[in-house]
């Protein structure tokens, strides 16, 4: 029996409020269908973790939800409206995306990079305002970058650069934030810091979705988990409901045991063994 059928009921009836979602979404790279007829929505004011093996379409899904990747069919709804029919700048004031691969202009400093995050709030005649500076200062603090803000981006370590990009999406001050592997290059301390920041942002009422590969962190810092495989959502729900050893085997071909963290109760993986299925 597959996990899909085990959890089928949870897929078809999400019971939460949502500002961002998609229905019958099909996303293609060229002629190859990556995601087909997918229904998904992000619970409002919560942290959603998207997990799944490499190449299963997590980034493609985030790009689709953030209107960066136009759907071949189906529709992405932001606050009930087709996201591709809303003015792009208007969308950018509500929804920010931190992509997995980033590429920045030459010769800019961290602060300048973060300043680009204010682009959706600026216009030809309003190129700078008080809230721009405040948002940038907040983002610098949040990503622990005050001491580095005048450094050139090219001269930073991978993790420092990743924090700068996180800060840029925070400076965008959007109620919805999609983060594609925000902690993949971070050391333990900064990982926890970024996860706590994500928690804090959700306590302020923001809706967040993040792609995470580390399952214990995904369980610990999210309210909702979406598990993907081959472009499909095989199960979703609260970490406690979803995270089972069957799921881990199904997703990654890894046998393991799950034990609850003695302090927090969230699951920890032990005894991991790769099994080819």
């Amino acid at each position: 029996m597959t996990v899909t059928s085990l959890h089928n009921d949870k897929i078809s009836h999400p019971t939460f409020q949502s500002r961002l979602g998609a229905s019958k979404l099909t996303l293609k790279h060229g002629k190859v269908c990556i995601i087909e007829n997918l229904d998904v929505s992000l619970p409002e004011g919560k942290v959603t973790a998207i997990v799944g093996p490499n190449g299963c379409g997590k980034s493609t899904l985030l790009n689709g939800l953030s209107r960066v990747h136009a759907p071949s069919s189906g529709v992405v709804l932001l606050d009930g409206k087709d996201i591709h029919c809303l003015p792009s700048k208007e969308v950018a004031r509500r929804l920010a995306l931190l992509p997995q691969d980033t590429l920045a202009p030459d010769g800019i400093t961290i602060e300048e990079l973060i300043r680009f995050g204010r682009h959706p709030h600026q216009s030809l005649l309003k190129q700078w305002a008080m809230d721009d500076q405040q948002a940038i200062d907040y983002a610098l603090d949040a990503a622990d970058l005050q001491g580095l803000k005048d450094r050139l981006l090219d001269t930073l370590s991978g993790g420092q650069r990743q924090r700068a990009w996180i800060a840029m999406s925070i400076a965008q001050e959007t109620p919805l934030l999609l983060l594609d592997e925000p902690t993949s290059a971070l050391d333990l301390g900064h990982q926890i810091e970024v996860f706590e920041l994500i928690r804090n942002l959700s306590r302020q009422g923001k809706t967040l979705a993040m792609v995470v590969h580390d399952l214990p962190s995904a369980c610990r810092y999210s309210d909702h988990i979406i598990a993907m495989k081959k472009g499909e959502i095989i199960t979703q729900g609260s970490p406690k409901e979803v995270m089972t050893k069957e799921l881990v085997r199904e997703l990654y071909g890894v046998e393991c045991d799950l034990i609850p963290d003695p302090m927090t109760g969230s699951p920890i993986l032990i005894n991991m063994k790769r099994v080819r299925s």
Partner: protein
Amino acid sequence: MNNQSLVISDSKQEIPTPQGYRLFSIGEHAHLLIEKQAVIRNTWLLIALFCACVVTLGSGTMPISPTEVIAVLFGHGDAMSQFIVQDLRLPRLLAGLFTGAAFSLAGCLMQTIARNRLATPGIIGIDNAAMAFAVSSIVGTGISLAPSAMALAGAATATALAFGLAGGSGTRGYRFIVAGIGIGAIAGAVTQLLLSQVSIDVANSAYPWTVGSLSAREPLMVNLLGAGLVICLVACLFFSTQFALMPFSDQVITGLGANIKHIRIIALTLCITLTGLAVAVAGPVGLVALVGPEIARVLAKYRGIPLVSSALTGALVMILADLFGRTVLSPIELPVGIVTAVVGGPYLIWILVRRSSRNSL
């Protein structure tokens, strides 16, 4: 009274600006952020350009001193120098300034949207196509359509073909460049073919024009170019914050609420207009489009997209190259296109072989 001034100074202090920028507030609703470095840089470039203009206007078979040139420019000076400066030399100088600025600005725009420093209109065949169309209107077909219009049509055709064949610009623009090089080669061959079909006299008179020269310019086309240049510069300033996003990946640009397709269309339209109009004046002097923006980028320390500076450096390179071509072998005159090719060719090779170049190539 005292109170009021306090309030004003307070509200001025309130908005801290990013380092290196100044905020110009006009009334309540207009707040413009100006980069100090850019203002300083462009002021120096303007001063250099002015000096170069004075020297250019003063040199020739009848040398005129700089003070006399300046006097003439401000409406004084004797009748003879006035005639030489204003009627003989100024038109050529203006043609040089306008074409240089136009080529260079077009180059900077094209490099920006193609995300590749090699992608200038000259390299991807726009110059050649504009020239082929213009030459065909003069010598080939006998249809007396204005060469400006034909050059514009040629530029637009080449761009559309290059984009069509490459299927968009791609992330690094290589496909676009390769397609463009092919189109440029075909257009160059067409020009040669057209010239080989006409009498030797017509072909001879068209020759300086096909290598790029400021000696054959038409006043009407210079004026058209001047007007086009002003409009395009204003448009560049208008869209500069969006052009500044182009070095980011498509995902980030879209995520920040800008429309990549619109930015591309706007930049390409400006590029085609500038290149087409400039080719109609001076022929293909495309290497200015490579050299001008590069100098501007060095001056800007590789920060941002120096559109205005590119226009200024392009104008400077063009009139200096023309001055050099006119004076170095005087009385023989080297076409400016040959001078820029002699200077720009090695420069191009240097860019290609320089291994320490940053990831922007």
